[in-house]
């Protein structure tokens, strides 16, 4: 890998991983805010409106950070990946432009109304504004996932005479079979993050003996939404997405699972480090035959290992891919355990006073961020060495006029800028949480 390619990849990976910290919260939170507004309607209690306003402020900060870190993503398709854009812009330009036209205008206009216009809109109008913000962010999510799905599994295109690909079927692109499960899996992950964050803030209020009324609402909404979402991540969405990978990127599937040899009754590796010299897993802890069963629903089914594929079809960085996937799945399993236990305590009416459980809820909010990030690492590393699977290699997609030195200059700049953004963001969110929902019971100050 030459220097320029490495720097272009690092810059994209860093800026997108940082960017995705914000949308994963806003996409999930927009749904939970709609839920809170719906509860305000049903229960007719002002408490839920106050709660929605409080989360609206947290949403707004995350949204602003999502926008300012999102613009560089769109720009980098041109600035750093010019040959990819020349090659594939005729196809993925569709979904990216649609995101701008359909999602961003909707989201940003109604977010302004949601935050500034509660009095003018009245309760019903305010609910509609919250709903439209939710709709906009979920449309945005779909169009980005559809773009990525096309890179994972290109459909609906034709090759033009200049070698670029052009759109051949609009609905083919939009209804890519890869996109459906990837979308709901991504959005489910976003709901997990926001549910854990909401529960963590609620747990903090309860543990700190302040704003207990809101603490209980946040914990309750957080753990119930978290339970549904984290189960949904495993089954059906995670399972179905794994089948997608198995069908369309079989070598990637083997690498994710750490399966080097093709075998009948393949084991599911839980823990162990891939050794790329000896092509085996070190100190493995595994469950015999489980991988065969999960993949084909037969204990003795044959699962293809990496040895079934020529080396040039192997993903570029197998250990990192393997770890990303295992971190995602491992954390996802722990999330289910935490949420099942919490909902059980909630049902027994002891959750609000079970301090140990509240401590766990409060401290576990960073992990969904890690799991979501690891999930995207799995998708993106799994696609390598391809930028567009089977059509364009990553090395052939960079801007070859941009030298390694110039790219490094901007990478360092992004590191510095995002460090500042991150620090200010944390200060601000901590401040908002500490002010608490009750500080401004009527309108936002």
């Amino acid at each position: 890998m030459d220097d320029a390619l490495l720097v272009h990849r690092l810059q994209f990976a860093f800026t997108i991983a940082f960017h995705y910290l914000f949308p994963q919260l806003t996409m999930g939170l927009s749904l939970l805010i709609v839920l809170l507004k719906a509860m305000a309607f049903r229960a007719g209690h002002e408490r839920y409106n106050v709660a929605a306003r409080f989360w609206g402020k947290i949403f707004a900060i995350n949204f602003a950070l999502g926008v300012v870190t999102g613009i560089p993503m769109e720009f980098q398709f041109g600035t750093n990946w010019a040959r990819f854009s020349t090659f594939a812009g005729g196809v993925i330009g569709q979904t990216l432009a649609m995101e701008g036209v359909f999602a961003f205008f909707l989201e940003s206009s109604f977010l302004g109304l949601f935050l500034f216009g509660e009095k003018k809109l009245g309760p019903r109008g305010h609910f509609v504004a919250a709903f439209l913000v939710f709709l906009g962010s979920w449309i945005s999510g779909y169009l980005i996932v559809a773009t990525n799905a096309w890179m994972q599994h290109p459909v609906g295109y034709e090759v033009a005479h200049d070698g670029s690909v052009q759109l051949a079927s609009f609905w083919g692109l939009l209804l890519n079979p890869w996109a459906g499960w990837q979308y709901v899996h991504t959005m489910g992950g976003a709901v997990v993050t926001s549910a854990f964050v909401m529960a963590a803030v609620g747990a903090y209020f309860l543990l700190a003996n302040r704003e207990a009324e809101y603490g209980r609402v946040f914990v309750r909404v957080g753990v119930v939404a978290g339970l549904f979402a984290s189960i949904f991540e495993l089954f059906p969405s995670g399972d179905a997405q794994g089948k997608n990978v198995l069908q369309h990127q079989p070598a990637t599937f083997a690498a994710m699972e750490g399966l080097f040899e093709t075998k009948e009754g393949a084991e599911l590796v839980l823990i162990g480090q891939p050794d790329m010299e000896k092509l085996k897993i070190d100190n493995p802890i595994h469950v015999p035959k489980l991988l065969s069963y999960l993949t084909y629903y037969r204990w003795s089914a044959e699962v293809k290992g990496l040895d079934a594929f020529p080396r040039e079809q192997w993903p570029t960085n197998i250990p990192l891919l393997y770890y990303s996937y295992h971190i995602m799945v491992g954390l996802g399993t722990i999330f289910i355990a935490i949420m099942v236990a919490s909902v059980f305590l909630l049902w027994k009416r002891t959750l609000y006073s079970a301090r140990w459980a509240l401590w766990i809820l409060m401290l576990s909010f960073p992990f969904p961020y890690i799991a979501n990030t690891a999930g995207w690492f799995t998708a993106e590393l799994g696609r390598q060495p391809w930028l567009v699977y089977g059509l364009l290699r990553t090395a052939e997609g960079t801007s070859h006029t941009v030298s390694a030195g110039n790219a490094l200059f901007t990478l360092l700049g992004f590191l510095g800028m995002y460090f500042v953004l991150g620090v200010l963001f944390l200060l601000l969110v901590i401040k908002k949480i500490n002010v608490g929902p009750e500080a401004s019971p009527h309108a936002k100050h």
Partner: protein
Amino acid sequence: MEILWFVIVTFMITMYVVLDGFDLGVGIVHLIVGKNDDERRLTLKTIGPVWDANEVWLLAAAGTLYFAFPRLYASSFSGFYLPLIIVLWLLMLRGLGIEFRHQVDHSMWRLFWDVVFSLSSVLLAIFFGAALGNVVRGVPLNKDGYFFEPLWTTFTVVPEAGILDWFTILIGFVAFCTLMLHGSHYISMKTEGTIQKRSRSAAASAWWGTFFTSLAALIATSSIRPETWNNFSEHQWGYIFPVTGMLGLGGAYYFRVRRNDTAAFLSSATFITSMLASTAFGLYPNVLPSSIDASHSLTVHQAAASEYGLRVGIVWWTAGIGLAVGYFSYVYRSFRGKVSGQPEESGY
């Protein structure tokens, strides 16, 4: 079909410049029209609910450009690598300035973010102008349709020029003065009293600045790229754009003196729109002229996506933009009128 999309992309970019232009302009005059904390808070409040949505036009315009002219997007964004990334950083700093100033109640904190906001707005206006200047002047496109420009070389207009030379810096100053004028009109329209008075006088200086820099730019363009005028002499109806532009600039003067701030704001919006339309008209069919060899220039036809893709796009674009115009008029109607000092619903 390509021509239609050329018009649409020009329209989207123009919308961005007119809308985000006034809040950039507010940034330019921020430290002049507001002298104390309260006044500066009020100035910011005029753009509070809308600046984020205005900036979304940049994303939407870039997305549409990417969709309709992928080769142009790839070539210009990689060629303008450094200034574009710097613009991104400035946009971030500017957003931070707006959103963080009111978070801590301390005069030094607020002063710091006021200066960050204003300085980044000034630099953005100049950079956007310089970018436009580069497109007019031409860039060193090679035969594969790519190029790379350092930030500057010798500051003279040579084939291997950098982003900044005397011509593009001149266009940068045109943009600076124009957006300062536009932003000052916006503040005069949205405020009363001292702030309004100061922003009217800022508009007066900005008007003369716009007048003289535009005149200089007109002369410079004619000497550097005389072919800009070819389209106008071949299709004389095109003169409608620069003529409307002059009327807009004249109107800005006339209505400011008559204290009709809304009409003055609309006049500066007309000036911006017409001047960008004139530039696009003069460029066509090129979208990115080559400064090395005219045969390397990218034209709308070479840069466009396939016919099928563009036809499909017309359908969803029309629907989407219709909706967006609906939201925007609704939002602007909801926040119409002057801002006041009362601590009612102000967000945050």
